[in-house]
């Protein structure tokens, strides 16, 4: 191919021209392109074969799966036992409650992403209503609803509840930590720094164990509460320490002049923090904040270890019976898909926020 031919070819057949130029410029390019195209096609074909063409979809077809010589995926395990993944040990007849509670929580989360709800009055009301709905439905014990204790909550509902509770408890705590850490009084700032550094130095697992198992020996009876809530408090504390440093980073990126201008206008401390410092700090810290939420959502799986049936553990349980133990991969794919939907939405929402808040404008 000569340079003089290119422009004409490009203008007549733009797609082909570009393809040619980018992927088939030399013989080596062409060889590499063909090789990788074949490799990708092979992977896609194998996946489609496994996941769709040779797969068994209908419920209660474990026998068909086992006799299936084609080796396709057995989605039957999902269509048969999805309720365990979503609701864990929650009593079967009552699972509609868990489902509605779960949907309520997701709706509240989605609503609170809409700018109209971002006011000091609407957001707290929304979340109090959301949590109350969730708790009342899950726990029951009145109006003829059977009581289901926290020990029997599980699956996706539990994961979402833990994530929402940790975020909601952790975020205000993080702001308070960040402000204390910035305090002008050295002993407050240093104590806070020590607390943050200490908690950050401990593995999340250790903190969860401590709050779940050690705390009852230390706390007075009235303060013990259910294990679930202790774990949430511990996790929120852990979240807050990381998020506090993220917020502090956002604050430090602000020029001194911002706070000085606010002072010079006669604004008091809380007005300066609430209207000038924090809004700008959060804009600066948006990418790491979204990151923190993603990590927090994924690490909810750790509660498995202290005996809770989150979505991950439930998935393992669902494919852990003698009848279904050959379909572990399919179950993990399903659980991974659930995580993917949540985390990917979170990431896209973060990207939308960044555009909307004009992070790039500054």
């Amino acid at each position, binding site marked *: 191919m000569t340079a003089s031919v290119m422009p004409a070819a490009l203008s007549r057949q733009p797609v082909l021209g570009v393809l040619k130029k980018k992927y088939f410029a030399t013989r080596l390019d062409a060889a590499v392109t063909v090789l990788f195209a074949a490799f990708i096609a092979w992977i896609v074909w194998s996946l489609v074969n496994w996941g769709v063409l040779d797969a068994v979809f209908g419920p209660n077809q474990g026998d068909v799966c086992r006799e299936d010589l084609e080796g396709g995926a057995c989605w039957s395990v999902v269509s048969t036992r999805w309720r365990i993944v979503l609701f864990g040990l929650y009593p079967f007849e009552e699972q509609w409650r868990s489902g509605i509670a779960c949907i309520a929580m997701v709706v509240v989360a989605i609503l609170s992403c809409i700018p109209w709800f971002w006011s000091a009055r609407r957001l707290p009301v929304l979340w109090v209503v959301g949590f109350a709905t969730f708790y009342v439905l899950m726990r029951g014990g009145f109006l003829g609803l059977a009581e289901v204790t926290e020990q029997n909550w599980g699956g996706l509902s539990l994961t979402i509840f833990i994530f929402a509770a940790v975020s909601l408890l952790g975020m205000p705590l993080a702001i308070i930590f960040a402000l204390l850490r910035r305090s002008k009084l050295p002993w407050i700032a240093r104590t806070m720094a020590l607390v943050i550094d200490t908690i950050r130095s401990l593995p999340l697992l250790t903190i969860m164990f401590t709050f779940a198992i050690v705390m009852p020996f230390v706390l007075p009876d009235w303060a013990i509460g259910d294990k679930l809530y202790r774990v949430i408090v511990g996790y929120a504390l852990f979240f807050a320490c990381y998020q506090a440093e993220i917020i502090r980073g956002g604050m430090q990126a602000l020029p001194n*002049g911002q706070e000085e*201008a606010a*002072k010079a206008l*006669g*604004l008091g401390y809380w007005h300066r923090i609430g*209207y000038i410092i924090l809004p700008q700090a959060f804009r600066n810290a948006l990418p790491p904040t979204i990151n923190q939420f993603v990590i927090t959502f994924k690490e909810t799986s750790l509660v498995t270890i202290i005996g809770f049936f989150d979505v991950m553990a439930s998935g393992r349980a669902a494919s852990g019976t003698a009848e279904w133990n050959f379909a572990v991969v399919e179950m993990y794919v399903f659980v991974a898909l659930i995580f993917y939907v949540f985390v990917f939405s979170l990431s896209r929402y973060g990207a939308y926020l960044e555009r909307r808040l004009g992070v790039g*404008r500054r």
Partner: protein
Amino acid sequence: MSAPAIRIASMNKYYGHFHALKGIDLEVARGEKIVICGPSGSGKSTLIRCINRLEEHQSGVIEVNGIELNDNVDNIEEIRREAGMVFQNFNLFPHMTVLENCTLAPILARKIGRAEAEKTAMEYLTRVKIPEQAHKYPGELSGGQQQRVAIARALCMAPEIMLFDEPTSALDPEMISEVLDVMVGLAKDGMTMVCVTHEMGFARQVADRVIFMADGEIVEQGPPEEFFVNPKSDRTKTFLSQILA
């Protein structure tokens, strides 16, 4: 109304061991316009920033409108509401529109209703000749426009005193006059003004008194005609020959 707008008596300011302001005595009468000049590092910005407690003084007295500046937060905030400040780098709030910049403090610190605050803000924005920019963000304006917004924002608090800390130093040359024009207008309306600036033309035109500072001290002060024509100290002469050359 007998108290002077600002009274500073034997005031000292230290940064650690560095003696930044040495025994400053200064009274500013109501309606008086003061221009403070001096070489960089002479303490002129520090002095003006002590008046509204952006910097803390270690000894001596500062009174604004008869209110003493001490550790009492209520006093500090009262004084800050009475003394508007304009900064070298504008320091507009980038996440708020021009109008929000101008109405925030009146609404929060003066407890004025939003509608009234917006009306006042539009009046001042008209006065600094940029009412049409009210709904833009600061980042969309030129330096000169931003500084005029900053002046309007300070005026919206209806202050009795205006402090200017090198308001034209960060501006491109062609934008300096649009800001100075606004300041001259303000002076003509009788505002009490303390300006740290190197704009000697402005000093000649509006100042009642020019103060020359060096090494944390007030070296010389006087009405502009006397100060520029017949400076007494050698340091003043050197300084004037440098900046007027």
